């Protein structure tokens, strides 16, 4: 999609989704600040961040797009996802409503971008000793697997799991991009006249059956 092939730099767009207050901002700030200090914070602060990586000898430029978690801004969600290579979906493990929101987003993303987009579902732990029932874990993991996403537990405060999660996401996005290159035959350069197609998703109310999810606390 946005990836450039042929030994050059990959450019990936990653959208960050999650209900307000689940702490997407601190997660991504932690990731982008950690190694490379403040330089990587653009003038847009935590809403739009970039990060340069080097994975197995290939340069990767990440553009991380934060989205507003509030329901009232969701009507235009799809224009944020457009052309994304990856999505990080964050929920709070103590708040299963926030997990339900994640499920809605996954549905929307798959509907719009199919399997071209790599998904990471991230359960945010505030403190390491936060307890959650084993049943919930099983449900969450099996859901992630069923939609082709990876599940992670991270803690921005303890800087745990974040680096791993993004690294894995990048690797998967590279694989997808390489597969796409092979499919294109690598030779055919994209003609400038092939304009991007704007996909339109009906913004019907996202009424997903809640059965099977551990909504009972």
């Amino acid at each position, binding site marked *: 999609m946005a990836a450039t092939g042929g030994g050059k730099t990959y450019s990936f767009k990653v959208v960050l989704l999650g209900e307000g207050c689940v702490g997407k901002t601190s997660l991504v*700030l932690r990731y982008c600040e950690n190694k490379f200090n403040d330089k990587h914070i653009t003038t*847009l*602060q935590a*809403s739009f961040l*970039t990060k340069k990586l080097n994975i197995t000898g290939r340069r990767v430029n990440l553009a991380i797009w934060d989205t507003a978690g509030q329901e009232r*801004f969701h009507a235009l969600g799809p224009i944020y996802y457009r052309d994304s290579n990856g999505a990080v979906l964050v929920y709070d493990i103590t708040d299963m409503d926030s997990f339900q929101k994640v499920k809605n987003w996954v549905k929307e993303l798959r509907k719009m971008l199919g399997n071209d987009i790599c998904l990471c579902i991230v359960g945010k732990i505030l403190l390491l000793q936060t307890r959650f029932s084993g049943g919930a874990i099983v449900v969450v993991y099996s859901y992630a697997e069923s939609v082709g996403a990876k599940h992670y537990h991270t803690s921005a405060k303890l800087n745990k799991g974040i680096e791993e999660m993004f690294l894995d996401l990048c690797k998967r996005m590279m694989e997808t991009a390489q597969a796409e290159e092979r499919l294109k035959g690598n030779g055919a350069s994209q003609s400038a006249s092939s304009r991007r197609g704007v996909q339109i998703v009906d913004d019907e109310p996202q009424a997903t059956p809640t059965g099977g999810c551990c909504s009972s606390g």
Partner: protein
Amino acid sequence: MSAWHSLELRVYWTKLKSMLKTLSLDRQMMENLIIAKARQDALQRKVEERRLRLQEAANRRFAASGAMTAEDQEQRALYTNVLEYEQDHDWPKQWKANIKENPDASIVLGLVSYLLSCSDHPVVQLLRKHQYRVYNRLYPIVSRSHLESASLSLNSSHRTQKFLHSEMKRKAHRSADMNIDDQRFISPNSSLPLSHCYELNTNCDIEEEEEEEESQVETTVDRENSFEDLETFLSHLDWVPPDDLDTDPEQACDPLIQSDIEEMEARVLKEQLKAIVKDIHIAIDQLLSLCLLSFECLNTASYRDLCLASIEEAFFTPLWSALMALFRKVHREREQAFETSMRIYCNSSPGDIGVPSKLFPNDPELLQGSYPYKAAVQELKLLVQDSCPQRKLECIVRTLRLICAYAENYRCHNESDSTPKTAAIGADDLLPILSFVALRCQCPQLVAECAALEEFIHEGYLIGEEGYCLTSMQTALVYVESLHSGITNLPPSI
């Protein structure tokens, strides 16, 4: 006597001599003319030969790319013109040498702006040709809408309405081809809705290329006037909302048919807009590739971007106001929604729009009679003044940066007593503030402007900061449009 004789003889001799002289002069002149003719013929031949040679050179240049399409042929003809131009002018060689010697972005920009100032260069001629073509399509659409709104305000559209009414009944309802021959409609089948006076030959055959160019030069003066023409009427163009239709009691038009007409009209307009946008993309692609063919030294990733930016600026500047008129017409409903919200919420505080209280000053004294984020509002107001998409996009980026800087400031001020937190502004905070700024901007045209940017901004920019800013802006605009429509959309009171 002999003296007399000799005198006569001398006079006669002089006469004869002068006659001979004239004759020889005539002969010389004749000879000269013949030589000149021969020379001219030779020159003509040479020119022809050169043209053929260049044509071959152009053919060779394109030989690599297999089968010839009409597009290739056109490109080849254009490239021949470029080669011809370069034989007659020295500056391209000098600039090329310059860039080779000292490759630098500023020299590249210099070259492109010099190129665009040479009105006889094929690149510029192609640019004008495309501009006229787009303009010729826009003019009848926007000028018609102007006439329409004028007639509406004079309440004389009754006849038209009646006519339309009967027409609608006579014609098959919602006929697929929509061939209603009224001033309001243009058949989508005619690819070029030409205006009465400005016809443009769109045939691009190589043989006709020269003729076309000539005819274009002839009509240039007229067209330039019509550019001015357009500008004057655009300045008078004020949006007349269509509710005038409903308020006229005499027009007892069936509301069902009325809405059908409007719906159909909107559909036709959308189609026209789509076709024009496509034409513009094709035109810009063609211009860029001819530019890169003319100056191969520009064909690197970064120089190509510079080149494209310059071409776009030259292309859009004279056309933007006409384009905007069409975009506004297509997005009229959204603009009206925005305007309604604007009227209702014009004096609301950031908190009313859902901005967390820590992100704006709660102490009115601190604002000194102003309002929060005023600098960002003022920046955003400048957007409509630019006439090039790239510059408009930069204006949006500056607006968002200002918002972030001010939000940070306000928060530091509000939290001065507690320990400073490191969490920065994320989208959850940014969007409510941006919506507030858009409301305060009081400029419904932003809706159409952003829709146009979405069409014309190069894809490469859409993944980066610019793309993020444009996406956020559009989200905020849609939110503002929805604000007035119901309590469901109201932000939770904080």
